[in-house]
């Protein structure tokens, strides 16, 4: 019975040009519905019944460049109540409807309503700058987008890049150092790209020429980059911090007129170059992969290299090129950690975000915009955590810090389930 329903739910994602079959089982849809109903119950218990009737929450909706908007003040009880009821209704709809199409959208909407109710409750008797929160979300998302795009580039051509974390570190280190020595941030960004590309090349060299297991090479590159940047930081940067490790950072570039748009202006149109670059790359990689001859070749190599070879595509050169380009993208993402935000390199500053980017890529089903969605979710939970810490909601800070990771686990196991990577992902290729 279940299998039949699963087949019925299969939809070919033709609109995006990928020959991919997505299967959402009926059971999972029901599970999502039940989960939303539970969330709604939790919201009513926690955010409505146990809150004084007069409690109010204020969301500030204005940040500097935008046209000023009046703050939004809401009664906690009423707002959270309405939101919870809506969330529960969506859950019931999912359970009753049982249809797979649009299930994720409905679930996402329901979850967003719950989050809104939660924020209203968390901000009771206080003010929450919602725009700032979105800005923080985007800033935390940006490096993940670079990392996930790097993964997409490599894995679509059939090479697993688990070394993103290492390429991040290399890019962050060299970006900071060259940016600091030369005083030219663009040169720093270039250096970050080169550093990432270099380790992309090393991955390609060992994995393609010598057919070493790609996961092993990746793990080793991360270990190497971690050790090397730690060593060089202590041995080279620390003794001469002012010359070698004090780069400027890229200033935000306001896009005229657009930055005046209320709420969205400061979030989307007053960011530094890395954010814009990530957005451009996102579109370029997506269009490139799914709309161009180049992308078709890359995907052919990633799915069925033997077949690609027989029609005259040079499998190994496609893979070399993609893995190096992937490294370059991760290297630029790495540079954003230093010359895009804090302006100095410190040991292991990427703190495992390379792996989170990898998870985002898998969660996003090896697709650029899927990865963006996953990265935004993580970025938002990072932002949520830092704002909740300020609001002092009575949740111990380690649990807040844990939240992004718990959410990733919940999402990966609850919503994503089994995923299908490119068929030849990770398999070494030898010409016959």
């Amino acid at each position, binding site marked *: 019975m279940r299998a039949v329903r699963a087949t019925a739910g299969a939809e070919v994602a033709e609109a995006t040009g990928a020959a991919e079959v997505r299967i959402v089982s009926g059971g999972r849809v029901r599970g999502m519905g039940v989960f939303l109903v539970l969330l709604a119950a939790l919201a009513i218990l926690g955010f409505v019944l146990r809150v004084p009737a007069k409690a109010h929450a204020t969301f500030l909706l204005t940040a500097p460049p935008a046209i000023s908007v009046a703050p939004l003040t809401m009664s906690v009880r009423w707002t959270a109540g309405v939101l919870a009821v809506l969330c529960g209704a969506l859950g019931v709809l999912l359970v009753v409807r049982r249809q797979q199409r649009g299930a994720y959208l409905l679930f996402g909407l329901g979850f967003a309503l719950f989050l809104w109710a939660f924020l209203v409750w968390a901000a009771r008797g206080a003010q929450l700058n919602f725009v700032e929160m979105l800005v923080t979300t985007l800033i935390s998302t940006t490096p993940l987008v670079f990392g996930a795009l790097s993964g997409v580039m490599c894995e679509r051509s059939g090479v697993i890049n688990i070394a993103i974390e290492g390429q991040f570190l290399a890019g962050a280190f060299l970006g900071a150092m060259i940016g600091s020595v030369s005083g030219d941030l663009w040169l720093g960004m270039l250096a970050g790209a080169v550093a990432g590309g270099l380790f992309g090349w090393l991955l390609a060299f060992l994995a393609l020429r010598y057919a070493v297991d790609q996961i092993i090479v990746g793990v080793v590159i991360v*270990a190497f980059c971690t050790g090397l940047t730690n060593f060089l930081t202590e041995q080279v940067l620390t003794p001469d911090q002012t010359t070698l490790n004090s780069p400027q950072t890229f200033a935000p570039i306001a896009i005229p007129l657009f930055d005046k748009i209320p709420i969205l202006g400061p979030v989307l149109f007053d960011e530094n170059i890395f954010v814009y670059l990530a957005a451009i790359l996102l579109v370029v990689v997506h269009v490139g992969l799914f709309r161009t001859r180049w992308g078709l070749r890359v995907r052919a190599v990633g799915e069925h290299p033997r077949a690609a070879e027989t029609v005259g595509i040079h499998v190994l050169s496609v893979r070399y090129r993609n893995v190096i380009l992937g490294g370059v993208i991760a290297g630029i993402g790495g540079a954003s950690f230093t010359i895009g935000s804090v302006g100095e390199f410190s040991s292991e500053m990427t703190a*495992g975000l390379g792996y989170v980017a990898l998870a985002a890529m898998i969660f996003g089903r090896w697709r650029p915009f899927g990865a963006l969605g996953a990265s935004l979710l993580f970025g938002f939970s990072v932002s949520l955590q830092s704002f909740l810490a300020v609001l002092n909601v009575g949740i111990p800070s*380690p*649990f807040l810090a844990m939240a992004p990771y718990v959410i990733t686990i919940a999402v990966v*196991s609850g919503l994503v389930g089994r995923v299908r*990577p490119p068929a030849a992902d*990770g398999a070494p290729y030898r010409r016959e």
Partner: protein
Amino acid sequence: MTSGGEAAAPRAPRAWTVPLRKLAQANVAVVTLLSVVSALVLGAVLIIATTPAVLHAIGHIGSHPGRALGLTGAAVGDAYWAMFSGAIFSPSALGHVVSTGHGWVALFTPLSETLVSATPLVLAGLGVAIGFSTGVFNIGAQGQLIAGALAALYVGFEVQLPIGIHVPLVLLAGAAGGAAAGFVPGFLKARTGAHEVITTIMFNYVMLNLLDYLLSVSPFQQPGQSNAISRTMPATARLPHLFGSGLRANLGLLVALAAVAGAAWFTRRSTLGFSFRVIGLNPAAGKTAGIDARRVTVLVLVISGALAGLAGTASLAGTDFFLSSGYGGNIGFDAITVALLGRNRPVGVLFAGLLFGALDVGGRNMQAVTGIPLDLASVIQALIVMFVATPVLVREIFRLRGGGGGSSLQLATGGWGG
């Protein structure tokens, strides 16, 4: 684990090349040795390139060649000598023993320290290796280690027992804690298909934060402390020293050795271990033969987690006696490289763990004596694994002929395993 290598075409042998050819048909041991040598050479280059005085002297090599070579040799030699004498054997300590008849403890301290730091690496490395050879990527040794240490610590301070019962109980608790932490991603993978690479990595951060929380509340926090420091292990729960109180080598070492023997028996002789191997080598064949792949996935992560938990317990109850934020440091990730270097075989993991332990201890001594950051040891470790994983590259560098030393390292599964 290793797929068929490509043997180079043999040429007609010449008499004088026979010994060389013997070496050339290099087995895994020779390739491993040459990998270590190559990694040390690259490490030396790194020392030279980052020591300004040496660079300056090399810049004037035309006018003062002797000085340049001398300085270079001294910088590299001092560093590696400090590493060796800190990790294995120091002649000056021997001299002290010979001349005075005292100082035996100092003589054996380096070796003892190497064993102490190898112990958790071997235990956690075994866990990762069992996963790798079954096609399960357990990147979560760090989190499982913390879970094990927390459980062991709890049993340590909460229960009062004589040492003969308390110590085994603590070890058991540690293994159980790690197993529980391994069970969760295993269960999620079996039940929902969530990939263990993602979930185990995420659980590392969950456990690190959980540790931070527990260190700041009762009953784990040291009473009267505002810092995030745990209570200490009582004397009855500490692993006894093996060679007297002066040397820190303790029962944890024997636990690790027993685990190596157990893992070797398990993978080669037991039915369950056999089914693990089948699933690792050919999941489809295993399923056809009636092996429940989901059950195997859960069990592998439970066993892997238990070994990581023991690793955390061995260092907590053996040498550290309390927990602090970020406990375990890099042991969880180093366990992965140890497993790879040991080619996922129990005895291989033992030697890899000993080598890594020696490099860690030696690195600390090097930093103390010469001021060169101990992170050089991590760089060398990563390079060793890189070379070992690429025997063909090593053969090319050293112009070895023949196909010895194995082909490029492959794990049990290709890719994500879908």
